[in-house]
């Protein structure tokens, strides 16, 4: 025996060497099985115990079972063997084991064996269908063939035919268990080659079904008996062969039996299989793409084969064949074509069958799918453009069972025949742990999430969805959003590709624009939420301007959610959901109010920026203009005339320069007459600090200058920009002298040499001319926390008079509020002021006590007047 095992070892090592060199690796598993077969045959011939048993008429056979029986012996697969005795098992049988198997164990092979009689086998198979599957795969190697034949006959007669339904149920149950534990390998980035759905087990599953219910003996029978077409069978053998090859490489690299194709080996295996990088399309991505194609095809073939031949649910399937439409009918709950000829004369029937499948919730039968595959050539340009086909497609998109129908279209190749652009992403894999699906399946999954929105736990999703005037553009965008993958800027590429598709569809223009918008910006919300500060009004406003209207925002939000959910667990969790939701609400509020981000506002801001840019370049000072745009608050850009913005930028540049060079806190005050309104305009720039605005208002009041209106705001870089319209100074002939005095007082104020409270109080006592009049209207103060997510708005209405603004702003300063923006206006003798404030923490004022205090304090001051 030792010499036989030596021979065996040599033969096996030779085969390994060839495999490592990449020679004949496709046939490895089969050759491997043959070498083992040879070993057993030789052992059988030479066996002393065998001869003894033969003399005693205790006849036995050696059977290969399980994977070895199917000639699928991978590099590190277990070798399962059965010693079958026709009748009783003699006591010498154990010695036979020592003789034949020990040498193999010594070589370190994983060997499993059993010694059974035919009766034992039958009894075991009745109780345990797992044994039955391995028995049905058994193969005679050598010994007493009548024993083997009687076993096979008994199996069929005693077990399979008696327990047909129970066995069928069990097979179905196993499929479910595999789905739960191993998932759909044709989608997964680290698929299980054997047990995953679409893996080798699917092929075995199909074989077991055919063996039990279609009298199949060897795989070749699938074709010979007409169960599969030539193409289907060849495809199956090719795909299974590829998976087995990958599995052999996996075993080799891991040095042990292993089925889960982890990331760590994928690149290496891709190289070994001869894949090479093509531009930015990595070898490993090509490899995984091909593997997924194999698995998808095996999965789909197995599913439809099993649903046709497995005798389960025999009762509830007992439905009379019903007529669905011309040339289509339902039999056993599956859609079927009346005849292949009908498709030839009416290609539209292909689309029709899917529409019916969607509407009725019945899958296409195995035969029907086969026909679809074979008649794909009928889907030509004319078909793709036909109104009828597009109409059907849209009704699938809008109807029920959308995902299941799309999946069937995807698996049969119909989807990429109808939308050829889909072919480029179908099996495109991204080699990372973030995207768990290939792009094509991910797109379908996204649609699935969108269609199943109603069953989500998050109520706001359902609310948002139910408010959409129409959902079709959203679903189409779900299907198309990644069609530009992969590579840089896939969203923009995807937009262009989608435009072609929609044009070919002759799709409604407005709706097309919605779809294209969604495709183009499908990452906007997530990117903004992750990369920008959501406390920054400007960031949110920019996002809101891109979105443009509420309907689109809602669709975009839902697409963001579905896209992320369909990407993988790392793309969506509470942490991200929380930020995206916050952004969603903030944009919603901004769009709701329309002030900053209506289409009108967006256009106006763009126009303003262009004009400012042009005029700055003409005057030769536009180098750092973009940095200035960046720090200007949205309201400022929206409401300030371009001419003024240019002026402010020049002043700010000057200010920054002086600050850099002299280190002093500088300020600029400019005045110019505004003849049309019979008033003066003051522009005041300085680095902001708490109380700055109230100081300026105070100094102006000290000089009897009445503030008619004011726009004040603080840029994000801390520059305060205040524009006042003020009444003409009393000294009408020499106004500039008044401004000089204002500047002098401002300097004193800065040096701490001027108390505004004291001076203004003294002034009021001294001058009976400016004695307070009786207020004609009661002053009013409103605190508004609803109008902005970023600031508390304080509105003040009161009789106008000199010093009013100083009083209000000093009170706000006293309450430690920061004025970010203010709009001061006067109508007749009424002042109406709005202040956008935040507290020292940069937050809105939401504490009730504080709100009350502000209102009371302001009213108290206003009544004093």
């Amino acid at each position, binding site marked *: 025996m030792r010499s036989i095992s030596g021979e065996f070892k040599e033969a096996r090592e030779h085969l390994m060497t060839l495999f490592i060199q990449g020679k004949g690796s496709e046939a490895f598993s089969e050759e491997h099985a043959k070498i083992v077969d040879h070993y057993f045959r030789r052992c059988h011939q030479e066996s002393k115990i065998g001869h003894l048993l033969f003399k005693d008429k205790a006849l036995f056979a050696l059977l290969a079972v399980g994977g070895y029986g199917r000639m699928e012996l991978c590099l590190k697969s277990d070798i399962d063997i059965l010693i079958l005795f026709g009748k009783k098992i003699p006591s010498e049988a154990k010695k036979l084991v020592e003789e034949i198997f020990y040498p193999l164990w010594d070589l370190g092979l994983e060997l499993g064996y059993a010694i059974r009689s035919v009766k034992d086998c039958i009894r075991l198979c009745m109780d345990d269908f797992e044994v039955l599957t391995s028995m049905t795969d058994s193969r005679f190697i050598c010994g007493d063939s009548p024993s083997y034949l009687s076993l096979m006959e008994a199996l069929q007669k005693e077990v399979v035919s008696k327990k047909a339904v129970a066995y069928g149920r069990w097979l179905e149950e196993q499929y479910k268990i595999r789905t739960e534990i191993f998932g759909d390998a044709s989608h997964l980035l680290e698929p299980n080659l054997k047990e995953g759905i679409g893996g080798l087990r699917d092929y075995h599953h199909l074989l077991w079904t055919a063996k039990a219910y279609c009298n199949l003996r060897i795989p070749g029978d699938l074709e010979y008996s007409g169960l599969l077409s030539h193409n289907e069978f060849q495809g199956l053998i090719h795909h299974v062969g590829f998976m087995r090859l990958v599995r052999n490489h996996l075993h080799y690299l891991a040095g042990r039996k292993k089925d889960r194709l982890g990331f760590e080996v994928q690149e290496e295996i891709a190289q070994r299989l001869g894949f090479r990088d093509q531009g930015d399309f990595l070898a490993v991505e090509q490899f995984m793409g091909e593997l997924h194609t194999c698995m998808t095809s095996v999965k789909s073939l197995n599913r439809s084969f099993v649903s046709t031949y497995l005798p389960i649910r025999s009762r509830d399937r007992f439905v009379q064949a019903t007529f669905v439409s011309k040339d289509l009918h339902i039999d056993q709950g599956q859609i079927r074509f009346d005849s292949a000829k009908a498709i030839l004369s009416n290609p539209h029937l292909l689309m029709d069958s899917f529409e019916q499948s969607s509407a009725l919730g019945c899958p296409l039968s195995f035969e029907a799918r086969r026909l679809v595959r074979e008649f794909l050539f009928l889907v030509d340009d004319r078909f793709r453009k036909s109104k009828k086909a597009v109409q059907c497609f849209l009704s699938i998109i809008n109807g029920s069972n959308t995902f299941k129908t799309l999946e069937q279209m995807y698996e049969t190749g119909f989807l990429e025949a109808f939308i050829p652009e889909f072919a480029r992403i179908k099996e495109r894999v991204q080699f990372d742990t973030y995207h768990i699906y290939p792009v094509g399946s991910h797109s379908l999954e996204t649609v699935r999430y969108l269609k199943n929105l109603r069953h989500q736990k998050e109520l*706001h999703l359902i*609310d948002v969805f139910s408010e959409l005037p129409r959902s079709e553009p959203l679903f189409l965008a779900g299907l198309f959003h990644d069609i530009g993958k992969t590579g840089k800027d896939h969203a923009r590429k995807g937009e262009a590709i989608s435009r072609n598709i929609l044009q070919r569809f002759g799709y409604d223009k407005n709706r097309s624009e919605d779809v294209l918008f969604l495709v183009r910006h499908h990452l906007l919300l997530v990117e903004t939420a992750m990369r920008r*500060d959501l*406390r920054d009004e400007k960031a949110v406003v920019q996002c809101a301007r891109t979105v443009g209207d509420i309907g689109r925002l809602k669709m975009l939000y839902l697409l963001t959610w579905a896209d992320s959910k369909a990407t993988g667990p790392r793309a969506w969790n509470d*942490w991200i959901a929380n930020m995206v939701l916050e952004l969603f609400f903030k944009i919603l509020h901004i769009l709701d109010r329309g002030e900053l981000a209506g289409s009108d506002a967006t256009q106006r801001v763009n126009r303003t920026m262009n004009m400012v840019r042009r005029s700055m370049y003409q005057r030769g000072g536009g180098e750092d203009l973009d940095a200035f745009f960046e720090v200007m608050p949205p309201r400022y850009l929206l409401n300030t005339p371009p001419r003024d913005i240019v002026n402010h930028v020049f002043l700010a540049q000057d200010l920054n320069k002086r600050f850099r060079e002299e280190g002093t806190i500088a300020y600029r005050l400019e005045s110019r007459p505004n003849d049309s309104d019979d008033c003066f305009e003051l522009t005041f720039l300085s680095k902001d600090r708490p109380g700055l605005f109230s100081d300026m208002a105070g100094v102006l009041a000290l000089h009897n200058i009445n503030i008619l209106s004011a726009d004040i705001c603080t840029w994000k870089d801390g520059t305060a920009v205040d524009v006042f319209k003020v009444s003409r100074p009393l000294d009408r002939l020499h106004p500039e002298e008044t401004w000089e005095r204002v500047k002098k007082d401002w300097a004193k104020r800065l040096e701490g040499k001027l108390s505004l409270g004291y001076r203004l109080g003294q002034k009021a006592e001294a001058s009976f001319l400016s004695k307070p009049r009786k207020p004609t209207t009661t002053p009013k103060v409103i605190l508004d926390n609803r109008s902005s997510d970023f600031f508390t708005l304080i509105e003040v209405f009161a009789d106008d008079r000199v010093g009013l603004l100083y009083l209000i702003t000093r009170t706000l300063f006293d309450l430690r509020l920061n004025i970010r923006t203010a709009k001061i206006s006067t109508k007749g003798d009424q002042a109406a002021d709005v202040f956008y404030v935040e507290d020292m923490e*940069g*937050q809105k004022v*939401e504490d009730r006590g504080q709100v009350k205090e502000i209102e009371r304090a302001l009213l108290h001051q206003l009544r004093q007047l």
Partner: protein
Amino acid sequence: MKKIEIIIKPFKLDDVKAGLLNLGVKGLTVSEVRGFGRQRGHKEVYRAAEYQVDFVSKVKIEVVIESDLVPEAVAIIKEKARTGQIGDGKIFIMPVEEVIRIRTGETGKEAI
């Protein structure tokens, strides 16, 4: 040795990470966390239903460094994570008794 725990706004992560790496920090741990401090959550009313947006999403960085590096590290974090707005976050510094590298059994400075 000190452990520094830093809570910052998510979009500042890259800046702070780069700053710390520049300083010579060899490794750090990042987690996605939610919570609230002065920057409170708020309620949203949407179609008459209320949604509590209680917690704010933040990033937590944990890093262990030698004590003499702490002032510099803090300065860098402060510089990189500041927006001047509410919710810029916090830095916590605490003493570390011992560090052990599991693979080699090295301890102390070597194991950081």
